[in-house]
């Protein structure tokens, strides 16, 4: 299983069923996972493509889409931030 966390406006278009899923077949990297998500959830895919999206793996910033994804990982998808 992997845990997916969709923050801000991504949370509005991500179905609740995506929070915890089995690692999809063929998904080995963050890039694979993002492509898989865009195919499964076109709305979410478009929302992510339309803005700068940062990916966080196990609470650490992922600097590269080639970063591996493994069973047990938590991956968060962050749209541009607006604190303060």
């Amino acid at each position, binding site marked *: 299983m992997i845990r997916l*966390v969709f*923050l*801000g*406006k991504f*949370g*509005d278009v991500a179905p609740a069923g995506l929070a915890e899923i089995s690692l999809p077949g063929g998904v080995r990297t963050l890039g694979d996972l993002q492509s898989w998500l865009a195919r499964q959830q076109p709305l979410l895919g478009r929302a992510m493509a339309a*803005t700068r999206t940062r990916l*966080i793996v196990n*609470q650490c910033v992922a600097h590269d889409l080639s970063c591996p994804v493994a069973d047990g990982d938590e991956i*968060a998808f*962050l*749209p*541009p*931030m*607006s*604190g*303060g």
Partner: protein
Amino acid sequence: MQVRLTDRIFDPQAETAAFTAGRDDAGALVSFVGTCRAATDGGAVEELRIDHYPGFTEKEITRLAQEISRRFDCPDLLVVHRVGRIRPGEAIVLVAALSVHRAKAFEAVKLLMDYLKTDAPLWKKESGPDGARWIEPRDEDHARRIAAEKGWV
């Protein structure tokens, strides 16, 4: 240095009083309080919702505060940030710096606010009579953040 997220109404003046209690060694306190406005450029605001990513958000804000603290030699920093549902008039954020002299405290609070606007993992959604919209940093926020990064300010 203290960094705290809270989903409850907080009293920025009481927080500031606790932060400075008994301190007669630092002469200068600068504080910023950001409050939920009843109306913005986008119209009337009935409610603000702030999303966060538990664990990561605290960690990132702490990292930003540590960077500011080092840069301005200002160890005494306080950050309190609301998350969750917020009504107009309620405090959203408090940043305070206590220092021996005032120039560093002003710069520390100002830049930490610039950082929070663009780099803190928080997401604001404003709801009003015309519906809800997610807020993204304004161009001027980014410009300020870049200037801060380069030491222009």
